[in-house]
């Protein structure tokens, strides 16, 4: 079965460091989503892309977060500088349209000390 691949699976780093999370969407999917999951806030949409173009990044703190799709096989989410409150599980999902079923990766568990 085709899968969304996220790396790294786990990341522990100190406050102030840059963090880069990567996602390989399922081949042929034209829509990519980034979510953040925490106990307090649940599942939050940070940003999503269609055909590599950003459509909505209103859920993302603009001053420290950035999301890009350098090509159709790679999406990145960067945090610079990182803060303890950024500790969460970050999920990437891909699909064939923004209202079609989304296929999720297994997430990156991020801990900022």
């Amino acid at each position, binding site marked *: 079965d085709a899968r*969304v691949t996220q790396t790294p699976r786990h990341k522990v780093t100190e406050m102030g460091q840059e963090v880069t999370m990567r996602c390989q969407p399922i081949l042929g999917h034209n829509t990519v*989503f980034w979510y953040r999951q925490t106990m307090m806030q*649940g*599942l939050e*949409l940070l940003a*999503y892309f269609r055909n590599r173009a950003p459509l*909505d990044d209103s859920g993302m703190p603009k001053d420290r977060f950035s999301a890009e799709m350098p090509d159709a096989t790679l999406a990145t989410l960067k945090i610079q500088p990182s803060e303890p409150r950024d500790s969460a599980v970050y*999920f990437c*999902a891909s699909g064939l*349209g*923004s*209202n079609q*079923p*989304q*296929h*999720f*990766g*297994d*997430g990156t568990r991020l801990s900022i000390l």
Partner: protein
Amino acid sequence: AQSVTQPDIHITVSEGASLELRCNYSYGATPYLFWYVQSPGQGLQLLLKYFSGDTLVQGIKGFEAEFKRSQSSFNLRKPSVHWSDAAEYFCAVGAVFGGKLIFGQGTELSVKP
């Protein structure tokens, strides 16, 4: 405002008993509706979806859900729960004409022997 409500944060059922997880939505347009399941340490997996047509939809793992427009509900059911069904379940709604999915806060299911 668009929203999805899962009234039950946590439900415990006995193995072999029937299950119903509630989902209510508020959406201005004709919705697409989804149920996802998340096992610990993993991403969300699609259980079933409703786009149109028959309001009773069948999904994987023996789950089904019924769309009731008059009640703005899309409850998930299973006639006989297995211990492996213990997980967190998310209801989500999207617009027919595009846009992001909105997820509920999730319902954690525990299964007792």
